[in-house]
């Protein structure tokens, strides 16, 4: 018999936008609410609510994640792979192009 799972508590984090993300949103930073144990899809979904202009250009249309050419970094230190993120209130995600260098 399946157990009923209580919804995970949400945490408020900041997302700093760089490059095209900043240009299309017209903002450098936004706040979003996501589960403390979030997937990249959770982050993409929350971001899409706050910044719909990101959908299609940076966030996949089905909100399953980011386009390959974008990447997230947690607090300026840890690059985020496709797995789950453990987020604390006050954390900051950086969203920028994964095309490094030049």
């Amino acid at each position, binding site marked *: 018999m399946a157990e009923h799972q209580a919804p995970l508590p949400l945490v408020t984090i900041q997302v*700093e936008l*760089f*490059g*095209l993300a*900043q*240009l299309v949103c017209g903002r450098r930073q936004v706040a979003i609410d996501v589960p403390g144990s979030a997937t990249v899809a959770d982050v993409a979904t929350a971001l899409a609510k706050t910044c719909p202009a990101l959908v299609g250009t940076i966030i996949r249309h089905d909100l399953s994640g980011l*386009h*390959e*050419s974008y*990447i997230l*970094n947690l*607090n*300026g*230190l*840890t*690059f*985020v*792979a496709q797995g789950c993120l453990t987020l604390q209130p006050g954390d900051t995600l*950086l969203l*920028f*192009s*994964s*095309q*490094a*260098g*030049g």
Partner: protein
Amino acid sequence: MYGYNGKTLLVNLTSQAVWWEPLSAHVLRRFIGGTGLGTYLLYKYCPPGVEPFDPANPLIFVGSPLVGSRLTTSSKFAVLTKSPLTGFIGDSLSSSFMATELKKAGCDALVITGRSPFPCLLAINDGAVEFLDATPYLGLNTMATEHTIKERLGQRTRVACIGLAGERLVRYASITNDGGRQAARTGPGAVMGAKNLKAIAVRGTRTVPIFNADALHAIGTHLTQRSLGPATEKYRTLGTLANVAVFNRLGTLPTRNFQRSTFDETAQVSGEALHQTHFVTNAHCANCTIGCEQILTTTDSGPTAQGRMEYESAFALGPLLGVANANTVIRASTLCDALGLDTISAGVTIAWAMECFEKGLLTLEDTGGLALRFGNDEALLECLQLIGERRGIGDLLAEGSRRASQRLGRGSEAWAMHVKGLEMPGYEPRSLKTMALGLAVSTRGACHNRSSAYEADFSARVDRLQVDTERGRITMEGEDFSAVLDSLIWCKFLRKAFHDLYAESATIYEHITGWPIAPEELRQAGERINTLKKLFNIREGWTQKDDTLPPRVLTETLPTGVVQGVGLTRADLDMMIQGYYCARGWTAEGLIPEQKLRELEILDIVQADATEAPFP
């Protein structure tokens, strides 16, 4: 032969001798073109131990099998010589119509040696060579030189020239072509100046046949579509300037001569800010569909300056010098282009001087009254002009940071930010550990482009703040990948548009040349090219101690940002270097076993009598 002309044009400026030598299929398949073929030719034609400014040092321009194919980003060429900054291999890439014109003129490579008895304009017209008097162009900036020569020889003529900096043998002088594109790193413009060669003008009408043009066209169309997709979006939007704000946030933006890795005033010189306030248009090289170039203009009441701006120029002439005025950064970059200066080496050398000035090692008397303090906009612009003219303090700084610090002494070598004599690019190695290794072992000195090792650091593949021996394999693979890119030659900004660079490039190579080649053969060509580069350096005196980083990087921790307290010890760097030598199959001293030379089919090249004078 398809895809190649199959020959090298050789010119001796001293004797005005001109002759052709064949390039065999065996050589072309092993070294492809661009940097690879150029390395082969440099190894062959550069007399061992020659001084970079000696007439015998060859200056080599090399095209590639892709040139003329109309594939996106394929109009590029390489320039190789023994570098006057490093004394090791010097190689740079440039792009646009000069590449296609050289091929149409009938040569895969142009090798120039000797020294002209008069200021020379070397004019090549479908393989016919003239030695014209370039006296009227002396002292002209690069744009005026190109413009004036085109007025004389025709607008379809393609021109590669030096500015004042090249004429005055500034060791990091660039060669400029097609309206401001630069072969700049490692100072090939200074070697051109030493040859008394102000410019090369090329016209050609020949067509090099392609083996299977229909198949190539189909692939090219698909590649063009991908070049307009998400894989290049960053470059099409803000260009490489997008790095500024991100690097600052990650603590990897070298600031005030690498004393810090964050810049408090980044918002004034970020790509986003420049795009909103200084952007004029995007531009692109010939046959490029990406168009990464950001043309920016000044907006203040001073003299108008307008030109291309890249991340490396913005970092080196902005945060590295404590300069936050975007108009000044744009002016400084366009001034470097006009004088024919490598912006990275110019900025890093001036940063060294500013630190010397602030520490009292250089005085107003030394600088001719110039207050070379960090953040002094006017001093930066005046200093660049002095360097270009080799006047006053500019004469010392024209030598580059290594020689200038050795001449000044008094401990200033500790903050001369170079590797092997080549000034550091805008990647802080303490907070990018894979890049630290890439910079330390690169054959051309502190270079980010010949390994692209930063790619691993800017991903979830590694922890960029930690070290391990695995970075050796990552760096080696990046170097070999880059060598193939730089030899075919593809623009690096196209690299993510390939699903599998080796497999797709092998197919394209076969369609162009008719020579079947396996993807693994291409990968091995990358390894072969990097190995021959290293062999050249060994022949020119490389020892293990040359694979290192500036003392500051190995003794000081970063003081600000998310990387506060992060450093890099010599032991950690040495551990990564050993991992790199091991991955390459080299000895613990970084030397190359004979078996490796056999495996890579280059033992014959090494055993050839390099002292035999190849020129009449």
